[in-house]
């Protein structure tokens, strides 16, 4: 199995979490300024879980993207195969 130039799995994970986090955070901000009618709200709507959960996912994903970006030497090893210690989460 060739090891060269393989994108680490952690980078993929960071990427999808950033995308999801931004979408959920954006939705939360939209709902903050355009709240749904009371009968359409979920339980505990006032906690605005989408805001803080979206922000947390974005931050977590961004950390993984930066920490495990492909040109920092993380190889497939850091993905699904062998790795250096620096590429472990």
């Amino acid at each position, binding site marked *: 199995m060739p090891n060269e130039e393989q994108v680490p799995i952690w980078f993929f994970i960071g990427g*999808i*979490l950033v995308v999801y986090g931004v979408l959920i955070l954006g939705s939360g901000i939209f709902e903050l300024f355009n709240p749904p009618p009371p009968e359409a709200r979920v339980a505990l709507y006032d906690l605005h*879980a989408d805001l803080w959960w979206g922000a947390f996912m974005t931050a977590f994903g961004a950390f993984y993207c930066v920490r495990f970006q492909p040109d920092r030497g993380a190889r497939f090893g850091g*993905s*699904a195969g*062998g790795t250096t210690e620096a590429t472990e989460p």
Partner: protein
Amino acid sequence: MPSVTLFAASRAPLISMGRLDVLIIAIYFAVVLGIGFYLKKYVSTGDDFFMAGRKMTAWIAGLSFISANLSSLETMGWSAMAYQYGMLGAHAYWSGAVPAILFLAIVMMPFYYICRTHSVPGYLKLRFGTSTSALAGISFAMLTVLVSGASMFAMAKILHLLLGWNMDVSIWVASLTVAIYVSLGGLVSAVFNEVLQYFLIWFGSLLIPVLGLIDAGGWAGMVEKIQRNVPIVHPTVGDANFTSLWQNLGSFDANPMGIDWFGIIFGLGLAVGFGYWCTDFLQVQRVIVAKDLRSAQNGTIIGAVLKMLVPIIVTLPGLLGLAVLLQPDGSPMVLVSEADPRANITHHTYNDVVPLLMGKYLGPGLLGLGITAMIAGFMSGMAGNASAFATVWTYDVYRLLIRRNASDQHYLWMGRWCALLGIMMSVGTAYALFYFSNILEFLLVLIFFFIVPLFGVVILGMLWKRATPTGAFVGFLSAIIASMAMWAFVHTFPDGHRPAPSVAVDPGAVVRIEKTGEGDDEIVRGVTVEKGTVRTVNVPIEANGSIRNSLDETLSEAHRLPADLVVENGRTSRVRVLAPSVVLADTNQPDKFGLEGVPVELAPGVRLVASNVVQSFNPAEFNAAHVKYIARSEKAKPMAVNVYSAAWTLLICVTVLVGVSLFTEPKPESELRDLVIGLTPIPDDGPCPWYKHPWLWATLVMIALVIVNWIFW
């Protein structure tokens, strides 16, 4: 006349998603497919495809090990168990999984790893020869396909009930996606996606217990609400303790499972837990492909830590379901088992507990993430089965019995097609389940009992060099037969089993419902069927001055079915009326309902089909008189019967294997090197700092496990 109106489930899908939710799900599918295409170029040999090149790190191995098991059948199933059995559901993790995973890491992993086997049947071939290995390989390959199909069917059914999605589309989209990424990238792709899915499952699921606990008023508030609601939700075990892990296991009456500590420790903890985690190849495959033995061991220990945390997203939502799921009038929502005739007609089922909580707490975007977590769980389980099937079939059946000396490229080609074939066979199984939906339950029980004997054979093979090939084969086979015999025994009724009296109104019938009161005070006084077909079971029919138990005729005059009947031992049973799809005479609108203890009037012209049913075998019912011999109590619930059966199965396997081995010829020691304890030198992985030693981490995890058990005692 008093009457009881059962909760009428809404006709609309349980959850309605917005465009953002659909986008989040679409992104998930695009990413997992993209990963499959991306990894194809890294898979060029059989070892790459089946063993991921044996290059995985401890973290990847551990995450994949747990993710392959975190299928939605597992998460939804054990959330349902927690709703049904309370805190005892956590024993699946803290008694049934973590000790077994640590045992796998420390004791068994060296043998699996050093003998360089491709699979658990592969180990059996080296240790005991072809017959035991072939029996294990063929059984495992077939069961893998069946489990994958069952998982697929469950996913399609749940997505249909929750979201109104077409079941055919759900089955084909999910299965083709898995087929593509597994056949392209083999185990590498399956593992890669499993790690991704692990993160999505946690991010999509963790908000439910967080928000649920806030809503319930913290842990203490949740416990107080559970104690208040349980007598209504589970009236037959209303006095049982639902919130303790151990202190309610002193007697069979004190807990909702009808089990005691002996059954939990020896049945769930030893037989089921060790069997599942130490010999289910789907799990073991994830860690035997690590880059070295220490990584395989530490990866398994990481898996144990991650497994210890899973009750947060599985058991806790089940408990919250007992506390915070309420009807509009504030009364507790009652969920029923899939086997209950009211399931999905008038009542949601135990399996719906997580989706109901999702619908309650998750808004746009978060809901899509939660559904994605659910789909990811299904797909990781399916991919795990597909890759395990490809490996076991190619190496332990095809290469062993059909074509021994083909090239590596040929086996790689076979593996790719086997992954596809496995998925297609799973699709066939899923469609078969449309017609035999109860098979799902029985299938899981059979798997349960196949894995346990396998553990008996493997563990004695590793720890006792006197164990012989004949002893292993006879012990394995007799334990499988014994486990099936026990299953049949508890479902057999020599004196006959009469199902409870019931009335079913066929779809399309026209009915009129008589009610008094308004809103929450509304009470149904009676039902009149004006047109259509009505089927009764065990309801005596008075006709022409005599009582008839069975008939099929169109009524020439009005007839009244009773609300209550005297059944066995002078006990009175309310007649249950189920109408899954009828038309209301007053409004001409479609409706469905379920009632108990309400008289049913049949108008002239209605077809009445009455049946008198007495069964000598019913796989959905347990004979309490037989159950007490297996599970030591007539009060044992299905889960208790299963774990006790597993304990006896393991005992039978070990006893027969030892007995037969003592009278048959063992293999010479020269053939047992690297396979049996005492004849297996542990390889030197190089210098190991103390903080990386598997023994240290296994000890710390064990201490943490004891603390967790003490906290929730």
